[in-house]
């Protein structure tokens, strides 16, 4: 019965342990030696993964802050200052990405892609938001990747990884944002643009909403063109994108309809109540 079973376990346990101890005294078996090397290999891999996750988090946080900063752009009178400040912030983010690139020297990027993907997406969002504010157009993947080519010269290198790669691949390495990361980042950008639209109406800016709805429509058309060619996440974002577009289009509609009848100084009130409503619906983007 179960009593006998339990007793056996008690009897056998120290016995099994003793045998293990004996094995430790003897030269370790081939199996144990190889498992020791597996332990090393797995630990190295997990450590690298953790370091990358941490970097990715930092990149996400800094990028988010940049986006918040850029949202102040429309309301503030000193727009240039905010833009240059955002540039400084993005440079800091890029330094983090450089560290990521260093971690990935000689590795298969896709092996660790899951660790860094969220950070990269957020970076794409921040950088494309800034680019839009500056140029009113969409930044391309190529342009983003151009900024992610790093050279060893601009900072003294202390990492030992670079020293052995110096001979083969001197001084430059890069990180490439994948098309999918780019697409997901751009999809998030549209959410920011929607917020920008609503808040600019709140500030009495009548032109920006129309410009934005035009731009968002172009992006939406682009996404529908891709459709389900892309991975599942992309098609999932398409739904939110549609909602953002609808909000912006509705804002433009209201502007057109009400704009003709409400005096300009009162428009701000109409939209500031609307903004609150939308923010509540949205939750945290």
């Amino acid at each position, binding site marked *: 019965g179960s009593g006998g079973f339990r007793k056996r376990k008690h009897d056998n346990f120290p016995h099994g342990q003793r045998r293990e101890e004996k094995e430790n005294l003897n030269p370790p078996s081939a199996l144990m030696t*190889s498992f020791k090397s597996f*332990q090393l290999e797995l630990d190295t891999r997990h450590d690298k993964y953790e370091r990358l996750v941490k970097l990715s988090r930092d990149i996400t946080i800094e990028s988010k802050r940049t986006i918040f900063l850029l949202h102040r752009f429309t309301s503030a009178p000193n727009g240039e200052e905010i833009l240059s400040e955002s540039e400084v912030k993005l440079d800091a983010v890029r330094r983090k990405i450089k560290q990521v690139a260093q971690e990935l020297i000689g590795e298969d990027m896709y092996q660790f892609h899951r660790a860094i993907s969220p950070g990269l997406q957020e970076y794409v969002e921040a950088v494309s938001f800034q680019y839009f504010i500056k140029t009113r157009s969409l930044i391309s993947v190529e342009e983003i990747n151009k900024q992610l080519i790093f050279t060893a010269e601009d900072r003294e290198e202390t990492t030992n990884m670079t020293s052995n790669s110096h001979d083969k691949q001197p001084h430059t390495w890069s990180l490439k944002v994948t098309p999918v990361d780019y697409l997901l980042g751009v999809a998030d950008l549209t959410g920011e643009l929607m917020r920008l639209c609503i808040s600019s109406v709140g500030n009495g800016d009548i032109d920006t909403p129309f410009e934005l709805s035009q731009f968002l429509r172009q992006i939406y058309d682009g996404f529908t063109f*891709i459709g389900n060619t892309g991975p599942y996440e992309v098609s999932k974002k398409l739904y939110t994108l549609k909602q953002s577009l609808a909000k912006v289009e509705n804002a433009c509609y209201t502007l057109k309809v009400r704009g003709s009848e409400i005096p300009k100084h009162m428009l701000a009130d109409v939209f500031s109540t609307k903004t609150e409503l939308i923010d509540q619906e949205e939750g945290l983007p």
Partner: protein
Amino acid sequence: MSVSEMFAALQGALGQDQDIREEIRKVVQALEQTAREILTLLQGVHQGPGFQHIPKKCQKAREHFGTVRTQMESLKTKFPADQYYRFHEHWRFVLQRLVFLAAFVVYLESETLVTREAVAEILGIEADRERGFHLDIEDYLSGILTLASELARLAVNSVTAGDYSRPLRISAFINELDSGFRLLNLKNDSLRKRYDGLKYDVKKIEEVVYDLSIRGLNKEATVGAGGEK
């Protein structure tokens, strides 16, 4: 570049990606078919008469691994060599299964644990990432864990078939495997989940050994097998 041009370019890239995946899927299907055939062949050892034919079955299985090697060769040509992990998910499952099958064959032949290098060689791939299409360490370990549960089953069936010495040897083997796995610091992922099942295999085999011991059947076995305990 206009927005629509950009998206057209991206769509092109994604479309190409999809074509590659389609190609990979085809080869993986063929690999799965071969793996099933090998498995069916090796399942024969669990039946009574199968125990006498183990060497013959192993030899046949090894012939099938020739097919696996040619299929692996074709898989390698389907995608750029430096993007292994981009498409890893597609062949992960079948590769683990093939590792198990190779490990099972090697165990039946020599009662040893196949090394990572040896599996790679049987499958016609590399053990190191640097040299091309390789065997990921987690896939190797997963395959080995499948072997453990198969051996637990084999221990039961070999008793039924009247072979009382095999469970003792399997027990020693699994115990060593267990202490090997205990060296690893596993993350909370699929490998860890499968490792958690190993203790049940260990327990199962211990029970079989216990049943043999209290009936004195293991002594009978050691006469033939030459002293295990």
